[in-house]
């Protein structure tokens, strides 16, 4: 027998680390308008290619092109721009608040605003999103009050979550926003279960599930896909590929070998890979998946390609593991700037109006922050009562918790 060569372990590494030159050739940026738009009742086996292409609507010049160019009114587009700007301003303020010690922690979605903001517009009241901590855009685009969100970030006396949660783990049933878990991936099968329930009940409401690229590695991602493929409930399975999971690049979750969108193929589910920094593409593809779900045609998996432009969280320093200028090299641009360009190109926007809108959203955020701070921040002012700590463990407080509350003397 010939001498057998020694084995060695393959450990994926990003093409570049701090000090190196950013490289995003693996993103495979296709020209806008190129990817086809199949009918919603297409056989999933027919569109496997769409997991490897990239659906884009907005081209370099800011024109909306190709079959996915959606018929959004100028008013809708301006609202979209405003939602994204508001999300960004809100994030900036909360990051600042964390630095000022008004909360312990914060997670922004800088650079990823288009995905949640545009997706939300494709849903109906009563639909339920099962988001991650980076989908605050869903709430903001739904018009949810900033003050309410901030009260939760500050864990103050008006925090509906009674101070129990870290910043960003909102819960807003009325807005179709399921309580965010700190545990990655768990919400994915829950969303599938919610959608199954809607189907069992003969309802018309659909679910939308959210997960990050890194978290697709979690086993619950598989659990969700198995149940989704077996029972075909009305659920949209969103994967937000922002290239990073804290310090691990997408290759550590399996993104080196293939595209995350392709995960759906092993389950016979249709899957689309989409430019997540393109408000129009996000809206159009979300509507397509929504229509499928609503028509009882079953789940759709969507990989949204984007870039986490900021740190993972306020506890993180990305300069330790990726080049500082990597964001500038990101080939899909900034979702806010791209939508702005489109509006200007359509003659529906101007630098002047843009400045005005930015000033407006800043003022709105500032005012909300002032109000929310008046209800307290993490270490100052009014807080949730200590006694409330014992509530909601169960619907009725059982005896042992009443005893413990008494022991604490509250």
């Amino acid at each position, binding site marked *: 027998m010939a001498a057998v060569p020694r084995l060695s372990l393959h450990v994926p590494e990003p093409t570049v680390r701090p000090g190196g030159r950013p490289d995003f050739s693996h993103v495979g940026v296709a020209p806008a308008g190129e990817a086809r738009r199949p009918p919603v009742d297409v056989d999933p086996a027919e569109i496997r290619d769409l997991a490897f292409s990239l659906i884009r609507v907005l081209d370099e010049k800011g024109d909306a092109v190709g079959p996915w160019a959606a018929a959004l009114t100028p008013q809708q587009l301006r609202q979209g721009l405003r939602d994204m700007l508001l999300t960004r301003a809100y994030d900036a303020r909360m990051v600042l608040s964390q630095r000022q010690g008004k909360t312990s922690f914060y997670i922004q979605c800088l650079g990823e605003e288009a995905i949640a903001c545009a997706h939300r517009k494709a849903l109906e009241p009563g639909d339920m999103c099962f988001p991650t901590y980076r989908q605050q855009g869903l709430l903001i685009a739904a018009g949810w009050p900033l003050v309410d969100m901030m009260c939760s970030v500050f864990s103050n006396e008006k925090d509906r979550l009674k101070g129990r949660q870290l910043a960003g783990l909102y*819960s807003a049933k009325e807005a179709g926003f399921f309580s965010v878990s700190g*545990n990655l991936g*768990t919400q994915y099968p829950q969303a599938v*279960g*919610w959608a*199954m*329930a809607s189907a069992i009940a003969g309802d018309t409401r659909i679910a939308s599930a959210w997960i990050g690229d890194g978290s697709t590695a979690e086993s619950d991602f598989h659990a969700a896909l198995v149940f989704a493929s077996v029972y075909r409930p009305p659920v949209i399975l969103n994967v937000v590929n922002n290239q990073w999971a804290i310090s691990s690049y997408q290759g550590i979750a399996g993104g080196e070998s293939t595209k995350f969108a392709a995960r759906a193929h092993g389950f016979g589910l249709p899957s689309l890979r989409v430019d997540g920094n393109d408000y129009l593409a996000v809206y159009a593809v979300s509507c397509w998946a929504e229509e499928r779900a609503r028509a009882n045609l079953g789940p759709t998996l969507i990989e949204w390609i984007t870039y986490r432009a900021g740190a993972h969280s306020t506890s993180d320093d990305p300069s330790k593991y990726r080049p500082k200028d990597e964001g500038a090299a990101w080939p899909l641009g900034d979702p806010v700037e791209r939508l702005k360009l489109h509006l200007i190109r359509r003659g529906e926007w101007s630098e002047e109006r843009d400045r005005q809108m930015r000033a407006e959203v800043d003022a709105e955020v500032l005012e909300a922050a002032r109000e929310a701070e008046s209800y307290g921040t993490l270490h100052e002012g009014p807080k949730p009562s200590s006694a409330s700590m014992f509530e*909601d463990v169960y619907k009725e407080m059982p*005896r042992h918790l009443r005893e413990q509350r008494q022991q604490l003397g509250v």
Partner: protein
Amino acid sequence: MARLSMVEAIRDALDCKMAEDTRVVVFGEDVGYFGGVFRCTEGLQRKYGRSRCFDAPINESGIVGVAIGMGVYGLRPVAEIQFADYFYPAYDQIVSEAARLRYRSGGEFSAPIVVRMPCGGGIYGGQTHSQSPEALLTHVCGIKTVIPSNPHDAKGLLIAAIEDDDPVIVLEPKRLYNGPFSGHPDQPSVAWSKHPLGEVPAGRYVVPLGKAAVRREGRAVTVLCYGTMVHVAEAAASETGVDAEILDLRSLIPLDVDAIQASVEKTGRCVIVHEATLTSGFGAELAAQVMERCFYALEAPILRVAGWDTPYPHAEEWDYFPGPERVGRALLEALEA
């Protein structure tokens, strides 16, 4: 009144709730067409249709995860985990999600789910068909854990669990599915039809969560037990002639501390029995609470009789099982001390 086996009583509870409440759906591995490997869901798919009783993929985390989603939607899912030994993959969904959802959402969302799982040994099931993981559940705040010892309670507790607004885990001692079990494998098996607690009222009734039952009154020593061990303790008491008071806890969380305290204060002695491994078992919590609440009434150390701290072996089953002999010895020891 009808005499039912525990399997029939469980099926009856599901049938009763499915009939009166369309929100109740039942699923799990082999639960649909086939009716479950222990037959607890037999006939339900035929009666209520495939979308209310169906087979699930073999993914326990998924089973509990989708149940949570259904509960959030507003249904009342009753999921079966085929054996308690296989619930670990679902542990994260139970602990991090079902148990915490109401709390973390400030009461906005909740997961009124029931997870049924056959537990316990005595059937030559080896280490992966014999476990009693209750202590891994009782440490988790936000869920309730119950375990019936007879058909009457099995039906009443299951109905109470389905109606409860919090997640409830129902552990079903599979050794009791078809009849009570004294812990003497060599004695002929008895059917529930011969036992008074095999009498199961028709229709809806509940055994409230959090209420223990005195199975045998006595003055010499209190025995705290649940599930199969209730019958073993009864056998031990009658075989040793010790005047033991036997409490069937039925519900571990919430726990009926009043009943426990009343009994131990009366007898001054306490023996705790469970089939799960000893260390950090639920018996430890019971011992600690008895100590805290009844210290000055205690005339002897509290004794624990439990499974040894080894995996549940196959051939050595009866050396492992805390049978009437070991329990009897503890009763006598408690009296001597």
